[in-house]
């Protein structure tokens, strides 16, 4: 039986490719399940949502957490994605010595427009598998926030969708509570 199977790379292979220069630094790529995936370009709406979220998180959480924007996480041996936002256990060194791993994460946020299926079908199962406790997918098209909690295998057992006017509370950081409209501006 001939099966067409793509070769899968480890995180260290992937890092070596960056070091040796044939994945140029300006490229928006991430490693997911051993495959190098191109991320969609960031348009103004995506950028605006990320900026607004970042401002809100800083305001509500101050210095309790480390906030990372569009930086890599060492999710597993063969996945190193770059989520839009990550709320991490506070570290004095701002993770300068080693990239974050799943155990460091309180909350991971993806802002989704054209990449909707990619975030939900490809990335979300890997986040669940790695044990990321809570993920939000902020959909700029439907103007909703999906909250995923309780990872089990490749899925999240709890999934709730919030629209403008509804109060959203992060399960791992109760101080992070706000009306979804602050982000969505629907």
């Amino acid at each position, binding site marked *: 039986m001939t099966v067409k199977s793509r*070769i899968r790379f480890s995180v260290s292979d992937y890092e070596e490719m960056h070091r040796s220069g044939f994945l140029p630094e300006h490229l928006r790529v991430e490693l997911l399940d051993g495959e190098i*995936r191109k991320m969609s370009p960031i348009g103004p709406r995506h950028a605006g949502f990320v900026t607004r979220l970042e401002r809100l998180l800083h305001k509500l959480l101050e210095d309790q957490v480390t906030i990372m924007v569009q930086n890599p996480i060492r999710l597993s041996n063969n996945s190193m994605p770059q989520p839009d936002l990550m709320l991490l256990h506070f570290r004095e060194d701002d993770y300068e010595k080693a990239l974050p791993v799943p155990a460091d994460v309180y909350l991971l946020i993806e802002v989704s427009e054209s990449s909707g299926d990619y975030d939900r*079908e490809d990335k979300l199962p890997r986040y669940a598998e790695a044990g990321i406790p809570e993920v939000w997918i902020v959909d700029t098209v439907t103007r909703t926030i999906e909250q995923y909690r309780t990872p089990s295998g490749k899925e999240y057992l709890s999934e709730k969708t919030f629209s403008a006017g509804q109060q959203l509370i992060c399960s791992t950081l109760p101080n992070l509570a706000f009306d979804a409209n602050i982000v969505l501006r629907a």
Partner: protein
Amino acid sequence: MIQHNAIIAEKTTWRFSVDDYIKLHQTRIIPADKQVELLDGEIIEITQIGPMHAYINSRLSDLIHEQLGSSVRLYLRKPLRLSTYSMPNPDLMVLQRKNYSHAYPESADLLLLIEVRQPPGSYDREEKLPLYATAGITEVWLIDPEQQIVEQYTASVENHYSVTTTHLLNQSITSANLPELKIALTEIFDTTEES
């Protein structure tokens, strides 16, 4: 739905160039013992070939060597620099006789390319033939050990071959590019009377 996702995955997967691919080997990111080929920017693992497949490759190379002697160069399962994003290892390449020690053969060097079809059979034809046609490979033979037939593809037009001739077990095949190369199919498939 599944198909839809497959299309999205296809579009977002990073494509490696042949130069990247060669560097991945040099830096051992792709281990030396890993059998792979580069098809349209994707690095595909090649599965181990069965004994029949291996034997047909060997037999074909003998037959070609007997008939064409040292006027050509034969490459068995060696890399072909097909295009910017493809570097397959075809089963057999009949190449113009020259020194390839400093650069892998390219499509212009090819006189005839032969692939042995793997069960269940869709991989070589559907994935590689369009790439061969696009690169301007002028003649391809597809050997089918299950059905004991040989399909001969000639006259490449854009991404396909406009002429396909099927040769049966009681027939013989003559190369379009190399008219002196004529092989009876029984010589390829009949493995009972080895001398």
